[in-house]
């Protein structure tokens, strides 16, 4: 091995430390820049009118995005109601029954591929599956697209969380004569509770900011649409449409909507983190 003096080695070390440190700071600076921009421009756009009124026609100043805020909430809740139970049951099957079977292996493999599928492709699929067949864009179709994106995520995280529960707990419950479903819901679920909730919250956070799968399923709308049939207003597609528009007022509203979405997603993530921390300490 080549001998190098300690001075030389220390100098190389210092140089690399400097380069790594400044590159890391550059990366972090860019991300802070992004956050500060969204906070600054978003905060000036949000006011009472923004939160409570309907959008005005293109080009006129004023109005708000109340319908889009409610629409995003409705679509996300419906997606959660579809995606979470199915994903949870699939996760239970993989962790408790399937385990090492070929079927479970195939499901895990396919779930992995689905997790990596671009969300716009899921949107395309739901377009051909639902929008074409039902004859119209709808909030329901958007919710289905989001549910499909959630499904593999919930399945894999809930499987992981259930597997962390020690087998002795299951055996004790069964030894007391509990049937399997009672064992799972009353014993295993309780042990894995905060982990499961964390997983679900993260999955909800992941889909609530999605735009691409809604572009050609839900579309957008300037009106209230409580039934979610037909095009439904939502924040993310509104951001896309408004940001691309030539009107300064609409662009400002897009920043406001971005801030709302970002705050929502970060809030969900922080909640999930707090829960996860409780689990570790408790």
């Amino acid at each position, binding site marked *: 091995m080549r001998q190098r003096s300690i001075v030389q080695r220390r100098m190389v070390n210092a140089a690399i430390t400097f380069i790594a440190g400044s590159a890391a700071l550059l990366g972090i600076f860019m991300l802070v820049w992004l956050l500060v921009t969204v906070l600054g421009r978003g905060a000036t756009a949000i006011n009472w009118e923004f939160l409570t009124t309907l959008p005005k026609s293109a080009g006129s100043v004023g109005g708000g995005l109340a319908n889009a805020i409610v629409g995003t909430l409705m679509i996300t809740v419906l997606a959660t109601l579809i995606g979470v139970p199915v994903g949870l049951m699939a996760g239970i099957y993989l962790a408790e029954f399937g385990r090492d079977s070929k079927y479970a292996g195939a499901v895990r493999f396919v779930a992995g591929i689905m997790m990596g599928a671009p969300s716009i492709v899921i949107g395309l699929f739901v377009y051909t599956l639902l929008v074409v067949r039902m004859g119209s864009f709808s909030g329901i179709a958007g919710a289905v697209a989001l549910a499909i994106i959630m499904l593999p995520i919930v399945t894999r995280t809930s499987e992981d969380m259930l597997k962390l529960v020690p087998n002795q707990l299951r055996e004790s419950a069964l030894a007391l004569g509990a049937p399997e479903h009672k064992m799972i819901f009353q014993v295993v679920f309780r042990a894995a509770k905060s982990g499961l909730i964390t997983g679900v919250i993260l999955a909800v956070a992941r889909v609530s900011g999605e735009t691409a799968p809604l572009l050609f399923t839900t579309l957008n709308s300037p009106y209230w649409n409580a039934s979610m049939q037909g095009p439904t207003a939502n924040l993310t597609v509104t951001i896309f449409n408004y940001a691309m528009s030539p009107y300064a007022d609409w662009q400002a509203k897009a920043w406001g909507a971005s801030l709302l979405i*970002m705050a929502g997603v970060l809030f969900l993530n922080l909640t999930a983190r707090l829960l996860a921390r409780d689990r570790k300490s408790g």
Partner: protein
Amino acid sequence: MAVDARQPNSESAGSRKQKSPANMLFRALGAVCCGAILLLMAGILLELLSNSQMSIRTFGWRFLTSAAWDPVVSKFGALSSIYGTIVSTLIALVVAVPMSLVVALFLVELAPKKLAGVFGTAIELLAAIPSIIYGMWGLFVFAPFMADHIQPALQRWFGAGPLFSGPPMGIGMLTAGMILALMILPFISSVMRDVLQMVPPVIKESAYGLGATTWEVTKDVSIPYGLRGMMGAIFLGLGRAIGETMAVTFVIGNDHKLATSLFASGNTIASTLANEFTEASEPLYLSSLVELGLALFLITAVFQIIAQLWLRYADRNGGAR
């Protein structure tokens, strides 16, 4: 339970069998929900295939090798979209991978512990920010910055050349790649940080005990130890970048042409879909767009499969080494 007792070494709970109707129903329900995942995957493939039939029949393999995209005369070729997808993803990886590595190193080896904790959390949170926000920031803040400062500087330093020719407009392939890089940076670096943290302290301490400097420990101990995990992280980042729609659509310019200059506007498969799908009225136009989506799905599936096999291989060979 009785079965488990007979197999004390087996962790398998699958060997338990209970035959009460409620239990059978519960088990079946779980199996059906798993089946839903398989069905959806098959459904995605079948729907995309059947809806792109017209385009596949009309253009055949030429669809993938032709760059002509003209809805007026119903000529469609995917080449410029595929080219743009590859180039923007490459730019993103070239920028993001070394940056993620140094950010991860900074967090694990260099930064003081408290600072590392705060930065680490911040980076994980940034990985959760929706891509549309990156795209919008790219359009309104970063693209003008590129046009005013970065692109003229690149032309000054490297000359116009084939890569940096044309007017510095801000919007284009290079900016799209940079925004993608910024978007996958938090994601890759948080995974890389986890990998570096898993290097057993004993190994690092023994290297330090032999008199190695921090960089030598990193280069000769930590990185080789975590190499497989890091490759996994890069694959996942790659998968995200390829299919990313919103972050790219805002800043790439959406132009169906093949240009060597990174300053020129271009398009990716995802951005073409986002831009043109709702406008496509002709059946052949729509069918061509679905075929684009099919191509994108197959590309990401291949990368996903490679990543999964790679991670499984890494697991079998004792995790990180």
